[in-house]
């Protein structure tokens, strides 16, 4: 299988996506996607994740089912998604119309020494998502493809899946808050209001 070298910069990609977030709820996977979301600007409706590898898509599903009128964007890494592949099937069966799963795919385990992931060798995550019943799925290599996909994340009926191929270029660390209870409570306060959040 011939490899196509990614050229997009992950920080630029995530910043472009989040520029249009409106009142969407953002669920980043642990590691670099969490730093990318923090770098794009702090927001209480981003649930920064520092653990629970393999769970981001399913956290997105639970949130999407609880908040059917809000858009939910899972923004995670290829390694994180590969750890929870079964969740593609679970989401495919549930068909949440308000959920987009976006993989910032650098084809490597970036936090552990840049070992290649399966996507580097051609494992096609969008094809898996499509086979699992996602309504739409695709791969993005260029900024013009990205421009076409961004409005879909917020408006097109889901579940949708997009793998965005990015370079392994190191981005400066931008670390958000890491107290899980505080991140959780801040998210619920912003979404549900203080009285509901602590009932």
């Amino acid at each position, binding site marked *: 299988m011939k490899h196509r070298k990614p050229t997009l910069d992950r920080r630029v990609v995530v910043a472009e996506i989040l520029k249009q977030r409106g009142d969407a709820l953002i669920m980043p996977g642990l590691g670099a996607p969490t730093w990318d979301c923090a770098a794009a600007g702090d927001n209480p409706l981003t649930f920064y994740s520092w653990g629970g590898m393999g*769970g981001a898509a399913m956290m997105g*599903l*639970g949130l999407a*089912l*609880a908040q059917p009128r809000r858009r939910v964007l899972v923004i995670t890494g290829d390694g994180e998604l590969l750890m929870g592949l*079964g*969740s593609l099937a*679970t989401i495919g069966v549930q068909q949440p119309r308000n959920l987009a799963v976006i993989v910032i795919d650098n084809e490597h385990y970036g936090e552990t020494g840049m070992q290649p992931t399966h996507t580097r060798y051609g494992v096609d995550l969008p094809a898996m998502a499509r086979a699992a019943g996602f309504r739409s799925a695709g791969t993005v290599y260029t900024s013009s493809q990205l421009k076409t996909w961004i409005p879909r994340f917020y408006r097109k009926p889901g579940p949708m899946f997009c793998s965005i191929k990015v370079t392994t270029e190191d981005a400066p660390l931008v670390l958000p808050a890491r107290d899980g209870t505080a991140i*959780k409570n801040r998210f619920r306060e912003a*979404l549900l209001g203080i009285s509901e959040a602590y009932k």
Partner: protein
Amino acid sequence: MKAEKQTVAWPLGIYQALKQAGVKQVAYVPDAGHSQLIKACHADREIKAVCLTTEEEGVAMLAGAWLGGERGVLLMQSSGAGNCINMLGMIAECRFPLLMILTMRGHWGEFNPWQVPMSQATVPVLNAIGVVVQPVDRAAEIAETVSAAARLAFSTGRAVAVLISQRVIGAKQFK
């Protein structure tokens, strides 16, 4: 008689306790002991019943549900507890409430030896990752135990697992 064909009263008692607790999302990996309850949840239009491929999916899903303002429950058999451990670390660290109901395999009258190791490890591993474990071995006490566990989980922000004894469910019959 096979366990999955039995009709008993306590699963409906759990269902009513979950309704009273305001549970809206039910995530499960099937178990024969939970089959009546799973059926009742699928028949309820106010409940989103979600079948999983592995139990840890449910741990993550119910964390997401809580962020979105909904309460949930995770149903599994005891062999699934081991599949959840790292994800339960997130529950502990973020103080997410999590209600789990486990039907035990591998102890009372078990025939399948491969069920025994995880069964014996269920309580120690759940304790080790910070889950409050509440075993129940009488059918008449299951519903009230679930109610109490729900109150503990949702009011204090903790993971609570109700373990239903194989003595109540009956060991799986291999015939």
